[in-house]
């Protein structure tokens, strides 16, 4: 069979078939089209970033974050975003798994020349995932990990003095979230999950530059660029959707973006307050992490999930607590109008 020319440059020989469009392209064009799409996502509309912003890349050592670190550095230079990039990694304390991936992140730090901060569950909460699993078993450990991780990222970013966190969530993740939220009836999240940047009242902005990038293409990019990453198993495989129609994943995201909710639903969502114990954002008196921690400390497991005993702002004696959450104090132009008021108030209280 004669070699097919690349559908984009029509000269070089086509080496790969793009999962997203089915086009057959050569390696260089693949890199270019992948990077250009991410660039388009970043600059679309008003743009995700502002010049001079400090941006932390949530780095797990996995392919998403490694490729993200690589692509962002490249684009930052190529298009002069003027961003200050950092690598932020969370050590959950899972022996074997995390040790190796952290090594990868350290390598990334050297490869891309970006400052790295590692925050561990142990130093933050006093518990590692290994110990949590020992305590609660394997069924709900994901809840703990998720809650702790989210806070950890925010805290790490605050310590770095960063305005913005970016994560490697890709199109497959978002499509999955859209469908899942429809099926679970989670209206509130459905309205938010396709936004490229999310920000709640006091948490740091989080963005997903890989919003339109297919997971398979991220893997291909990493493979062809020979980027080091720690491979984890892919649990969810949207293979069937992709087999029937390659654009299905992006189509789901398009639908998700078009969804508009009933007004009354939006009003009913809980107002946010801060945790009485550690100062993190919460919809109840105690933030989820503190509640879970209390449960762990007391040797309970699942009951913590129901937040029935979360009512005192002082932890029982002898329990470890999470250090106070210091809100970042740089009131830059990146703050939306309402945020400025809050930040000003926060400074005054201090």
């Amino acid at each position: 069979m004669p070699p097919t020319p690349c559908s984009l440059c029509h000269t070089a020989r086509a080496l790969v078939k793009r999962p997203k469009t089915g086009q057959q392209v050569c390696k260089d064009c693949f890199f270019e089209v992948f990077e250009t799409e991410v660039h388009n996502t970043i600059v679309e509309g008003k743009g995700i970033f502002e010049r001079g912003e400090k941006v932390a890349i949530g780095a797990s050592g996995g392919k998403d974050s490694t490729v993200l670190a690589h692509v962002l550095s490249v684009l930052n230079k190529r298009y002069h975003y003027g961003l200050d990039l950092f690598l932020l990694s969370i050590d959950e304390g899972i022996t074997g798994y995390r040790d190796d991936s952290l090594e990868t992140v350290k390598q990334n730090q050297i490869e891309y020349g970006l400052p790295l901060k590692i925050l561990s569950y142990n130093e933050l909460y006093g518990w590692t995932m290994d110990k949590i699993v020992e305590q609660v078993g394997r069924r709900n450990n994901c809840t703990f990990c998720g809650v702790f991780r989210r806070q950890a990222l925010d805290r790490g970013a605050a310590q770095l003095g960063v305005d913005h966190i970016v994560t490697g969530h890709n199109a497959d993740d978002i499509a999955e979230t859209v469908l899942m939220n429809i099926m679970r009836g989670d209206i509130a999240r459905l309205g938010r999950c396709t936004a490229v940047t999310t920000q709640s009242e006091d948490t740091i902005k989080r963005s997903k530059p890989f919003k339109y990038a297919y997971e398979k293409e991220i893997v291909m990019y990493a493979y062809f660029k020979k980027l080091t990453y720690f491979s984890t198993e892919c649990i969810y495989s949207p293979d069937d959707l992709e087999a029937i129609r390659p654009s299905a994943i992006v189509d789901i995201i398009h639908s998700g973006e078009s969804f508009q909710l009933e007004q009354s639903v939006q009003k009913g969502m809980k107002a946010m307050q801060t945790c009485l114990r550690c100062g993190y954002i919460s919809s109840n008196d105690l933030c989820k992490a503190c509640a879970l921690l209390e449960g762990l400390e007391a040797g309970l497991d699942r009951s913590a999930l129901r937040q029935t005993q979360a009512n005192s702002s002082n932890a029982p004696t002898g329990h470890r607590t999470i250090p106070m959450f210091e809100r970042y104090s740089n009131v830059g132009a990146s703050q939306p109008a309402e945020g400025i008021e809050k930040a000003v108030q926060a400074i005054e209280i201090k």
Partner: protein
Amino acid sequence: MSCGDIPDGLATEEQGEALMPRRVKVQRFDKSKCQKCRTAKSMYIIRNVTYCKECFSHSLFTRLTRTLHPAMRSTNLTSSELKNKSLASIGGNRPLPQGGSVLIGLSGGSSSIALLDILVEREYIGKGDGRVIDRTKGEKQPVWDRGIILHVDFSDVIENPISKEEDRSEELKKWVEGKGNGLVWVGLKAEDVYDGGLRKKIRGIVGLPKEAEGEERVDGDGVAVDLKNPDLPLFPSSSSSSSTPIDQLRSILSALPAASRPSFLSSILDSLITTTSQIIPDTKHILLAETSTRQAQRLIAGTALGKGYTLPLDLSVINKSSLSITDGSKRDIVRLKPMKDISFKEVAIYTHLRGLNGLVRNARNWDNAGPQGRKGDSRGKGNTRSLESLTEQFIASLAVTHPATVSTINRTGDKLRFTGVKEDEVTCPVCQLPVDPNALEWKSRTALTSLPTKTLPQDIGAVTNGVEQGKDKESLAKMLCYACLTTFTPPTVVSKVARTEVVPIQLPLWVGGNVRDRRREMREEIKGFLIDEE
């Protein structure tokens, strides 16, 4: 998605209860007795409630009326208002008599047969003779004077691998006509969308006088499109008016990728329903027998097809639209979905209890439309070829372990709102629903199919061969909504040979008509600036 990458916002208290409760055989009360009347033996279990035969039928009818009656009192109610119990009661025991005709879509599946059966049984539709009813004899005031029963047959284009796809029109017609004079049978075929004489045909069936010469909509001049070119350039109708409608339908089906055919057939069905309601002047309501199960499938499949923008319109119980009729004026017509709260299982039981099992055919088999087994057609799990059937199987299997699936999905769907202003919106020539703004631009931004830095040497060669024809043509792609654009977009891997040969395919007449209307509208807008009259 590994454990550590839980998306924003997922890690909150709900996550512990995130999994929907698995079905547990709860024996808290005696399920062997009907939970409604508490005397008769349970025969059916629907959404964890047991019913005896009587209570089952009763509950079915109650839910039907609770959806239908308020919608007929006020077509401005939103989905959540409809669910409001106090508002539901204003529907009363019977809707107000409307007179005129009601158009009922009869696909021949359990739900449409059940719907028609119930409506006739309860005398919602008159006997067609306009006589005064005698309440003393227990007769009820019909809501509508007559029912137009529309059935569209697709058997000519379905290639069922098991046996020849049967045309069920005759069988269904006999059943319908056996139900009384108030029902008018209109049997159409999918290929009628290529038939210039369609309107005349319908008028004939229904007994309307012929349209005056000048008023007859000129549907005869069709429009053709090059489906191999992602811009979808339009061409004037190739004079293949010697091709029969069925040939034209078959040729467009074979030109479309297998995954797109069910969507296309669906738009054919919609357009035939719309056309029929346009032609019959006293039609104010269209009843579609969509069950809650089907609704959930449409929401998920619609999301996967990129239809998010118009889904709220599609899913709502009440969908009011303005139809333009031949004299240029508009008439309001309301699409209603009275079976929205009733699941497929229930209509299947109902039709069985009424002895209609032999009449019912649920399988539409649209997955088997057009030529089968072409190289390059990819299949998903369970031999599915379209997102619609993949979704259907997925929901069916999910419903086994998580029975609340369908109702949860529908509840989510009910909360979606349509943001555009329907009347002002530009409509898609194919699905005739509002077009999401910037569909083409969004698509090209998120999935680049060409690089600005690389010029196409093809351009030079294009001047010399037929591809150049495509360059100055109007692009259908720019007029379509996102979902229809996805349906018509060619698979990008097109061999060079196919590209040099431009074979425009005839589009169905309704699409051609809409395209011409669009052209006319656009010309009106710039009329003042045109120097020469063409």
